[in-house]
């Protein structure tokens, strides 16, 4: 078991709203998430449930001017990111945490060559200032590109993103994220926009990097299988709240929350059985979310108390937390 005490990241009761015409989209509704040092954490949940918003909040890189954080804390090494000065935030971004985006085509600036983009990442990071070998930015860029197994890195530097394939672009993004040592990597569905085979390669690469460097990682994924293979603990997210968290073994064997159960049942079995029935219904409106549990409208085990106030995370066993009134019946 990993060191229990060294908590790297601790998100407490995070609420994030997006300003839209006619009010606020209350997307995050009390997210609790914790990452210990060296821990690999998975985050699963359907599209639009606020996974990326949570991750962008950690680095404070939500689109400027459009969001509002009414309450919550994000502690990184004990310090609240939301209260950090600009300089501290800059330090957090350039030395501590790096994020890999879902769509590498959108995450790379289309009008600059790779060399410029990765070069600037290195230039403003710890790797450059504290480099003992006094390597140039170019040498470090090439080293980072080699580490993600990109062929002909020297040439890669003078290419524009549109000259690369999706898989290559994602490797470049990973190279940027690992070009200087970081304590926490955030990988936001790093394979989703790629072909299945490429997706597999990218996940292997990521796994290898995490194993080799012993960094902590938050891996957002749609694939429960990937989460099971690659993480020490899984958070299940639904409509802006964490509904359940446990180790993969426990979660797969003994899911408690109805949403987790539905999610696990939705995975098509290779042994047959056809397309699964999934979870009927859709995410609630974020403009006027239901009071109480946000899953109540799709839940088959609903209760009057569910619509009164949102259920809190409740420890059913060690490291297994569930936010559902079922646990208290």
């Amino acid at each position, binding site marked *: 078991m990993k060191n229990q005490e060294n908590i790297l990241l601790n998100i407490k009761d995070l609420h994030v709203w997006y300003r839209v015409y006619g009010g606020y989209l209350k997307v995050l509704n009390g997210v609790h998430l914790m990452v210990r040092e060296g821990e690999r954490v998975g985050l699963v949940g359907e599209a639009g449930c606020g996974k990326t918003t949570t991750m*962008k909040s950690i*680095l404070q*890189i*939500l*689109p*400027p*001017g*459009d969001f509002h954080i009414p309450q919550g804390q994000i502690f990184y090494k004990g310090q609240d990111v939301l209260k950090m000065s600009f300089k501290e935030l*800059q*330090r*957090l*971004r*350039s*030395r501590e*945490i*790096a*994020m890999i*985006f879902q*769509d590498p085509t*959108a*995450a*790379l*600036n*289309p*009008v*600059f*060559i790779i060399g410029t*983009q990765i070069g*600037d*990442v290195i230039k*403003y*990071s710890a790797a450059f200032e504290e480099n003992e070998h006094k390597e140039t930015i170019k040498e470090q860029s090439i080293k980072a590109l080699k580490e993600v197994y990109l062929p002909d890195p020297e040439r890669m530097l003078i290419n*524009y993103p*549109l*000259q690369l394939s999706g898989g290559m672009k994602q490797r470049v*993004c990973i190279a*940027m*994220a690992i070009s200087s040592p970081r304590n926490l990597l955030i990988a936001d569905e790093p394979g989703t926009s790629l072909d299945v085979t490429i997706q597999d390669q990218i996940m292997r690469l990521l796994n290898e990097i995490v194993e080799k460097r012993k960094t902590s990682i938050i891996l957002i994924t749609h694939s429960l299988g990937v989460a099971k293979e690659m993480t020490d603990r899984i958070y299940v997210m639904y409509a802006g709240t964490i509904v359940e968290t446990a180790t993969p073994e426990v979660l797969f064997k003994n899911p408690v929350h109805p949403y987790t159960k539905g999610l696990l049942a939705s995975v098509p079995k290779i042994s047959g059985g056809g397309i699964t029935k999934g979870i009927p219904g859709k995410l609630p409106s974020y403009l006027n979310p239901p009071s109480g549990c946000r899953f109540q409208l799709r839940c088959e085990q609903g209760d009057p108390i569910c619509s009164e106030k949102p259920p809190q995370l409740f420890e059913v066993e060690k490291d297994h937390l569930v936010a559902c009134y079922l646990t208290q019946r």
Partner: protein
Amino acid sequence: MKFGSFLLKRLLLSIFVIFGLSIVIFIIARVVPGDPARMALGPRAPEEVVQRLRQEMHLDKPLPEQYFYWIRGVLSGDFGRSLVTKRAVSEDIKEFLPATMELAIFAGILMAIFAVLLGTLAARYKDTWVDSLIRTLSYFGVAIPAFVAAIIFMLLFGYYWPILPVLSRLSPGIIPPVRITGLLTLDSLIQGNFVAFWDAFKHLILPSVALSLGGLFQEARITRSAMIENIRKDFLSAERGYGIPERVIMFKYLLKPSLIPTVSMMGLDFASLFANAFLVETIFNWPGISRYGISAMMHKDLSVISAVIIVFGAIFVVANIIVDIIVAFLDPRVRLSTSRGI
């Protein structure tokens, strides 16, 4: 590099554009009612003299033949003779074009600098008073025609608070520089004649500002919206997330992609400066080619009309080729797609 062949293609294509323009303008100028020979000689000239002039000008021949005579002259640099100034049109153009070029280039520089500056400021301080001020100014800037702005400037800075000259290109008594390019500011600078430079520069300010306003504010708005759109893109979040300082993000990673629509627009705006220059030149008594061209139209001075329009067409084409080069420099998608066929 494949970009060279792309440019060559553009150049060849523009020759056809100008050729087509020459046919269109030739026909339009001639089908408009009114007898140019009669207008040139006045109502009291005897009919046989008028008839002789018509023959000299080949006006008695069918249109295709007239065009042939004319285009043959144009290709050898002879645009014919102005019926009003009685001089070779090419001479007139040489005299009047640099004045307008100077005005348009100066206005173009103002347009480029202030459009980007104001657009960036408005985007950076979106939804603050800075943004509101720039946006309000933009409405006025876009809505007020150049000649109205010219009159207002003239009143403000020439009459109520006379700090700038409002007529012609140089003050009387200033010795003009020897003509090299015809651009007074440039010529006087080359010759070290700073008195003339300063005077010519002061004369330039009001007309060029009046001329630039419309395009300037239009482009400022385009820059602002491009920046606001790009600021929400993932790549910007990513760059911010890697800890790249804000100023590098703002002036490098955000500015470059946001300039692409602005620069494309600038090509069109720069060319339309020449059209708008007419009234501004008239108001400020600026001896430019736009004023010359319009007066030729009033007198149905065929050779001049055709020549001026061909010159404007050429400027339009050249301006847009330059814009294409700049856009290709800014945007690899344009440059590479010409060689990769995406």
